[in-house]
């Protein structure tokens, strides 16, 4: 749920010879996605963060998932309409994103249901939560750990292009 599922239309217009300004929306996409990846990595590393940070970070990621999907809803609609077309790359990304949406939603849902710190802190105490939800939380977390990097990497060209411009990287020139 981290990488932008589309190259933002704002940075699409080619203008060689002059350094283009990066659109605010593209900046938002890039930095929001970077924060999401960092947050997910921390949240997955339960043994490092401890349960309190893990649960609050997980809840935050749930909200961020909604926001991320909302920001890219146009892409979802456009790609879903084009699913019948023979082009394969977008289909693969669409499938990975769908699997990630289901996996991440179930992971956050099961995490909320088995919460031992965040929910009791908010005054919510769920009873009769069976071991099914703990198992689901572990399994979906493992699945998302596989899918998140794939989701990021499928847009690596966009990430490298925007990252280079935002962070001022210059490709090394070959000596002649």
């Amino acid at each position, binding site marked *: 749920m981290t990488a932008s599922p589309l190259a933002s239309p704002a940075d699409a217009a080619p203008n060689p010879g002059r350094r283009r300004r990066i659109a605010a929306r593209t900046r938002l996409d890039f930095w929001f996605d970077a924060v999401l990846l960092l947050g997910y990595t921390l949240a997955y590393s339960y043994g490092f963060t*401890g349960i309190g940070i893990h649960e609050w970070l997980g809840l935050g990621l749930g909200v961020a998932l909604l926001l991320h*999907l909302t920001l890219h809803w146009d892409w979802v609609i456009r790609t879903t309409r084009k699913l019948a077309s023979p082009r394969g790359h977008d289909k693969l990304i669409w499938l990975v994103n769908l699997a990630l949406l289901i996996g991440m939603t179930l992971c956050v849902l099961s995490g909320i249901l088995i919460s031992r710190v965040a929910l009791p802190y908010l005054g919510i105490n769920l009873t009769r939560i069976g071991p099914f939800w703990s198992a689901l939380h572990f399994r979906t977390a493992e699945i998302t750990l596989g899918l998140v990097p794939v989701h990021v990497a499928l847009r690596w060209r966009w990430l490298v292009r925007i990252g280079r411009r935002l962070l001022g990287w210059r490709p090394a020139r070959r000596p002649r």
Partner: protein
Amino acid sequence: MRFLRHLAAVALVVAAVVAGGLAWGHFADHLPSGVAQRVIKGVEVRGQKIEVLPAGAHPGSRPQPGIHPRPGGRVVIPNGGESLGLDSMFQAVNLPVLRDTVEIEAGAIAAVVIIDVARRKLRRARRARRARGAMPPVAL
């Protein structure tokens, strides 16, 4: 306005997944076969480890103290009570956990990038070969 419309659509999709998950959880708890039991194999739940015994095994064949047999072949093994571990946040000693996560992610990203680059190079080479084949022979 457009943002709110999109947010509502996203909330609807997420709500559908949540409803599906809750239904799955509801029916998994009531499944008579071993489906739910298979899922919970070896998982730690609130300070207790739940295991499923192999077919034919009897809970009594595990002589460890504190083991409580449950219906369906499950045994609950207490393993240290309800410690929430709130005192172990961001300890340097636990950094390997974070490093493991980063390594898994970096490995998966590298694999996808390598496959993508190789696929593009292959496609480009094939296209170039086809273009060369289509060119008329040069007259000497």
